[in-house]
């Protein structure tokens, strides 16, 4: 069964997920009625998405079949997967983070250039880079 997973380190606190989720039922943007809330810890150093959602989105507005919050998340802090795929994705993120500091702020599946994608980056291995 697919569900929404969170990588807290990647949440930038933008609240797109929370804001759009609130609008899906009545078309009103607010902080009420949302099934995902971003807890902003004072001091700005942590933003934590808190889910109260089974992943069955009221309306997929960008990618068909995907929860709206996941498809709009700019960093990849939210992803939608079954358990096996979730483990693979999380592993890909952790590996990427060790490969390049870019992935401190972005999930590897969000980066458009293949030369910086650790899953395809055979070239760097050949050059002796740590992967």
């Amino acid at each position, binding site marked *: 069964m697919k569900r929404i997973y969170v990588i807290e380190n990647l949440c930038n*606190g*933008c609240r797109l997920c929370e804001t759009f989720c609130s609008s899906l039922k009545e*078309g009103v943007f*607010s902080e*009420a009625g949302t099934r995902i809330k971003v807890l902003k810890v004072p001091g*700005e150093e942590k933003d934590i998405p808190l889910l109260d959602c089974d992943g069955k989105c009221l309306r997929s507005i*960008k990618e068909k079949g995907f929860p709206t919050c996941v498809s709009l998340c700019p960093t990849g802090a939210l992803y939608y997967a079954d358990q096996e795929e979730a483990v693979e994705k999380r592993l890909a993120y952790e590996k990427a983070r060790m490969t390049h500091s870019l992935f*401190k702020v*972005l999930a590897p599946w969000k980066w458009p*250039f293949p030369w910086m994608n650790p899953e395809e980056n055979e070239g760097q291995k050949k050059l002796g880079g740590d992967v």
Partner: protein
Amino acid sequence: MKIRQAKEQILLRVDLSSGSIKKEPIPEEWTEMYLGARGINSRLLLKEIKNGIDPYGPENILYIGTGPMDGVPIGMGRLSIATKSPRGCIAEGSSGGFFGPELRRAGYDFIAVEGISEKPVYLLIQDEKVEIKDATHLWGKTTYETDAALRAELKDPNFQFRYIGPAAENLVHSAMLFGNLNQAGGRAGCGEIMGSKKLKALAVRGHGGIKLYDYEGFLDAYKDFRQKLDLETSRDMWTPVWSTFGAPVLSRLFPDMGQLMTRNAQEMSWDYDKATAISSEKYLDSYVTKAKACWCCPWPSCQKLYTIPSGKYQGFKGGNYWAGQPITFGSLIDNGDLDLLLVLSGLCNRYGLDIFHVGYTLGWAMECFEKGILTKADTEGMELGFGRFDQDELINLVRKIAYKEGFGELLSLGCEGAAQRIGKGSEKYCLSVKGMELEAIAERNLLMVGLGIAVSEVGPDHTRWYPPYPCNPSLLSKAELDELGLDIDLKLAFETRNPDKKGELLRWFTISRAIVEALPSCVFLVRDSLGLDLRTWWKLFESATGIQQDYQEFVRAGERIMNLDRIFNVREGYGRKDDRVPYRMSHEDVKGFGYKKIDQDTLDRMLDEYYSANGWSLSTTVPKRSKLSELGMEELAEDLVSKGVEVES
């Protein structure tokens, strides 16, 4: 939950002298004519601030405003902060974060702060409840301390703030407003005016919601918006780079291009090792701890938090490293130490200082010191050469600027103010226009930037015609350009060193960015075709507000805003003589790169084209009566005449 329509705009008027608090609706026709945020602020400024008043007096008004698209996930939390600058011209700046949507959800869009309080106060807004609260206990605190104190006092972590630091309390030149610790705005003098009113902070919490006129239409336009801005689909090469690595990548690219202002712009290239040592890559590798974003931004992380990992300043924390810091606290003062750079920049945020003021004024002081205009007798014994300074003394000097102590008092005036005081030819080393310091972008290699800096009503501010580099003209076909009514030869206009068509291009960039800032949204998002073709913005606005107007009428809102700003300035005596570039840019070629100075003939050629395209007088720059009539603002011509300003037909 109180639900508001997106197009509704309410002004909260607060008089700090009398303590009165009133709510007023913004006229609906103003939303059609000027949209919101920057547009309405400019209209309010012109209507309510009498010309010739003392900027520090009770008659000056500080406006903080958002607009129809904030609280809707297009606004990016943008705020327009506007007032009459201590320099006499219009002061207006944009700031991101989360304050805007919170203000809208509380039921307001604009705050007009009038009068002067007898003692320090802060404004507390909790939905319907608005109070002026004592802030004696906050006065003197840094921005970070103020944030912590207010959060402890108000408990709810969802409160949003705008506050000033000691610099604005002490009326230091160009001091700014801050929020979320590192979100700055209003560098043109807004912080000083807030300080002069003894208003330490604004705190807002709202629980309402925003309803759109046409939610389905909005979603369609939003998908188009994301297509142009998402990393995977944007056709703009800067989108993924800018929104992840960040703007300081330029510090490593600029030296090879003759664009890095070095040693107070005496040179335009820098030691490559130093430039690399302060670049984005180093920052991201060793300092960044976390991505940050403004409200509902579609980009991953144009902001970031950092902690200095080791060394003398280990553990120092801050946020945001933009294109400005590598110049102001890097090449301009010849500092290749990223730790020091981040400490200087982080301290500016804590004291509420403008990094451009501090960096360019330090650059000016260092040049004066090396030329013998300033000596150790002036600097309290401090060695102040380019790259030749004691780090602790430099850090202490930033504190002295904020508190106007010793040598810091001179530098607190900004480079122009300081040069006026000491004379001896030091004016030639000021990198400033209309009394305000430059930003990160060089002029002599990009003539549109030179023109943009010269004519900007608030002083140098590249966000008023962002981006400074040429866009890809092939993003739009000739047929699309015709459809948009854009009669500009883009190929010629994007030739960086040819003065032709710069006036026409700058005019379009200024109009379109005024629209983006009036919706409001973020000008850094004019990627892909969003900066040339405003139809996506138009559709978003129309679906959110229900205001039906044709595309050209929507575009006219931007033209009205740029005219309002010009009128404010000409009323205060500004004119063609003030539209200039710094002495160095107009008298010195860039050595080694072949970029010529922007001499008066070249500048005049571009100015004539710009003023003509705008329908402004070539001699006085006053908008002509025919132009104001075309824009539906003829009453402003009468107003100018009544104030003794000549208006050509």
